[in-house]
C-alpha cells in the first residue's frame, strides 16, 4: 500500500480522499491555493503545500506546481479527485514520467474515452448501445436526409466545433430538415467560425442513467450498478439517486455484464462511470464515459456498502478486486443525494463570503460530505458546491422523508444556498412519484415563475 499520497484537489472531495487515506494508514499531503489557506483539507492533512495564487490555472491546474509539490513531499501517488486534472491525460503522463502513481486509468485509456467519436466506436464494438448518428460531418441536405431516415426522426443537428446549445437544431420531419440545416450551419459559422454539422438521434424526454464501474489492474471488472441523475439545471446535476426506478433487474444485469466485457477489452483500470440517456421506452443509449470518481459516488456507496475511494487506492496499489470487494454485491435500500450550492435558491447567482452559522444535519441514514464550517469563507474563485447531503433509506419513500427532515435542519447563514430549492423539489408531486426526465427543472422553475407572477 502507498506510504504517502498527494491529493490534487480541494474542497469536499479533497477531504473525502484524505479521510480514506487516513483510515488505511496512508500519510496525506494537501496542496492549496492562497485562497484556500484555511480550508479543512489543509488543516486535516498531515502535510500541506501552498502551490499558487487563487486562480485555478495558477494553482490546482498548474501541473508543474502540483508535480513539484509531489516531489518535495516525496509521495508515492497522486489522487486527482474529480474535475481539475482528473481527466487530463497529459497530467497522468507527467505523473508516470515522474515515477508517481496516478490513481486512475492509464493515460491512453483516458485519452481514448476523452475523444467522443473514438469512445463511441469502442462502445459500439463491444455491443454497448450507442446513440445512433451520422459518421462524422454531413456535407449536404441530401446527405442529411439519408442519415435522418437511417437514424430515425426526431434527430438533432449539432455543430462539430460547437457547444453551449448553439448551432443546434431539432428536426422532426423530412420537410423541415433543409431549412433547419441551413439555419444551424449559419449559426455555427457565426458562433464558432465553422459551420460543419453532424447528426444524432434526438431523445425527447431523456432520463440520465449512469453505471458505476470498478476495474483492477489485473483485467477484472465489476459493475456497482446505476445511478439516476435526471434532475439537472443547464447540464449541472442537482439531485442523484441509486438505484434508478427505471432500470429493471434484467437490464441492470445484462448491461452490467456488457460493460464489464467492454472495459476489460479497452484495458480500463480503476473507477469510472458510463453515462447513458434513456428514452421513453426504457431504451439506453451511451453518451460518454467519465474516467474518474464522480461527485455523486456516495449514493452508490450507500446502497452497496463499498467504499469507492478506498477501492481506488487499493486498486492503484495493485490489489485484485476479489480481495477488495465482497464476493456478492447487492443493492440495499435507496439513496438520494442533494448537491448544496452556495447560490441564490431562485436566481442561481453564486454567493461567496463568510458563513456565520453552519448546522449540519445528522442522525440515522444521513451523511454530509462538506469542507465548509462556521466562520469559514466561501471563496469566489471556484465552483459553488459547498456540501453534499446524502440520505439512505430502506426504500425511496423513507429516503425522501429522511431528506426532507435533513434539509429542514441544514442551517447555513451568511451566504445563500440552494437548500430551499431542494426543499421545493422534494415537495413536488412529480418528483416524489418518480415522474421526471432531464427537462424536469426547466418545467419546475417555469411553473414557479408562473405561480409567483399573479401575487406580484
Amino acid at each position, binding site marked *: 500500500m502507498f506510504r504517502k499520497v498527494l491529493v490534487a484537489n480541494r474542497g469536499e472531495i479533497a477531504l473525502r480522499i484524505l479521510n480514506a487515506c487516513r483510515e488505511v494508514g496512508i500519510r496525506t499531503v494537501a496542496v492549496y491555493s492562497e485562497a484556500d489557506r484555511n480550508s*479543512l483539507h489543509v*488543516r486535516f492533512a*498531515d502535510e500541506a503545500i501552498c502551490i499558487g495564487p487563487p486562480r485555478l490555472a495558477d494553482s490546482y491546474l498548474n501541473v508543474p506546481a502540483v508535480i513539484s509539490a509531489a516531489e518535495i513531499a516525496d509521495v508515492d501517488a497522486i489522487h486527482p479527485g474529480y474535475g481539475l486534472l482528473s481527466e487530463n491525460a497529459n497530467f497522468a503522463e507527467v505523473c508516470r514520467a515522474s515515477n508517481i502513481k496516478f490513481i486512475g486509468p492509464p493515460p491512453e485509456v483516458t485519452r481514448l474515452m476523452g475523444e467522443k467519436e473514438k469512445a463511441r466506436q469502442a462502445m459500439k464494438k463491444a455491443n454497448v448501445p450507442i446513440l445512433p448518428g451520422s459518421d462524422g460531418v454531413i456535407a449536404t441536405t441530401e446527405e442529411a436526409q439519408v442519415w435522418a431516415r437511417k437514424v430515425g426522426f426526431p434527430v438533432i443537428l449539432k455543430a462539430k466545433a460547437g457547444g453551449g446549445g448553439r448551432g443546434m437544431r431539432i428536426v422532426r420531419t423530412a420537410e423541415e430538415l433543409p431549412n433547419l440545416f441551413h439555419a444551424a450551419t449559419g449559426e455555427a459559422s457565426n458562433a464558432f467560425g465553422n459551420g460543419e454539422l453532424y447528426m444524432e438521434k434526438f431523445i425527447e424526454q431523456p432520463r440520465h442513467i449512469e453505471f458505476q464501474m470498478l476495474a483492477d489492474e489485473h483485467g477484472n471488472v465489476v459493475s456497482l450498478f446505476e445511478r439516476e441523475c435526471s434532475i439537472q439545471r443547464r447540464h449541472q446535476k442537482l439531485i442523484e439517486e441509486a438505484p434508478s426506478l427505471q432500470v429493471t433487474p434484467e437490464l441492470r444485469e445484462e448491461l452490467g455484464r456488457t460493460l464489464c466485457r467492454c472495459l476489460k477489452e479497452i484495458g480500463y483500470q480503476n473507477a469510472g462511470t458510463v453515462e447513458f440517456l434513456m428514452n421513453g421506452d426504457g431504451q439506453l443509449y451511451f453518451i460518454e464515459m467519465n474516467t474518474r470518481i464522480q461527485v455523486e459516488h456516495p449514493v452508490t456507496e450507500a446502497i452497496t456498502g463499498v467504499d469507492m475511494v478506498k477501492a481506488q487506492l487499493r486498486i492503484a496499489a495493485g490489489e485484485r478486486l476479489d480481495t477488495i470487494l465482497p464476493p456478492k454485491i447487492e443493492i440495499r435500500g435507496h439513496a438520494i443525494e442533494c448537491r448544496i450550492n452556495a447560490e441564490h435558491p431562485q436566481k442561481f447567482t453564486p454567493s461567496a463570503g463568510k458563513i456565520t452559522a453552519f448546522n449540519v444535519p445528522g442522525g440515522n441514514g444521513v451523511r454530509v460530505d462538506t469542507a465548509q464550517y462556521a466562520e469559514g469563507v466561501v471563496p469566489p474563485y471556484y465552483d459553488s458546491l459547498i456540501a453534499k447531503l446524502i440520505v439512505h433509506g430502506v426504500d425511496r419513500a423513507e429516503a425522501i422523508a429522511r431528506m426532507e427532515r435533513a434539509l429542514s435542519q441544514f442551517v447555513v447563514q451568511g451566504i445563500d444556498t440552494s437548500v430551499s430549492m431542494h426543499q421545493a423539489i422534494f415537495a413536488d408531486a412529480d418528483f416524489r412519484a418518480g415522474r421526471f426526465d432531464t427537462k424536469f427543472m426547466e418545467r419546475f422553475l417555469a411553473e414557479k415563475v408562473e405561480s409567483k407572477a399573479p401575487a406580484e
Partner: protein
Amino acid sequence: MNPLNPEDIQDLKQLIEFLRENQVAEFEFGRGDSKVMLKFEQHQPSAGLPDLTSLPAGARAASTQIESAKAGTAAGAEAAAELDAGLHVVKSPIVGTYYGSPSPGAPPFVSPGEHVDKGQVICIVEAMKLMNEIESDGDGEIVKCFCSNGQPIEFGQPLFSIRLG
C-alpha cells in the same frame, strides 16, 4: 521583605529562563519567610481562526522535509516582522527546492549586506529537475536570507528581505 542579594537575583534570572523555555504558566516557591510567585503572560491564539485551532491538527507528526517548509510559517512570522520594519520581502513564485548557490560548494549568489539590482539572480528554486533562477524584484541591500540549501519551498514562501533603495 529582605532585599535579594546578587546571587539570588542570578538564580532567579536562571529560574525565569528555565520556566519560560518549558512554557510554565505559573510558579510559586516559598522558603522560610520568603516567597516567590511568578506568572507568565499566556500566548493568545491568533484571532480569526475558528475553534479548529483546538482540534488535533490531523496528528501532524514531525515530517522531515515539509516541517521545514512549515517553518515557512515561522519564517512567515519573521518575514512579517521584517515587513513591519519597512523591508521588502522577496517570495518564491514557484514550488520546489531552494539552493543559495549555483552549484554545491560554490559561493552563494548573494549574502546579507550585499547590494542587489532588480533582475539580479539571488537564488535557485529547483522544480521538476529544472533549475529556476529567482531574480530580485527590486534594487537594494540584502538584509536577511530565510532559507537554507535543500529546503523545500512552497508558493509565496519568503526567501529574502531587502532594504530597498
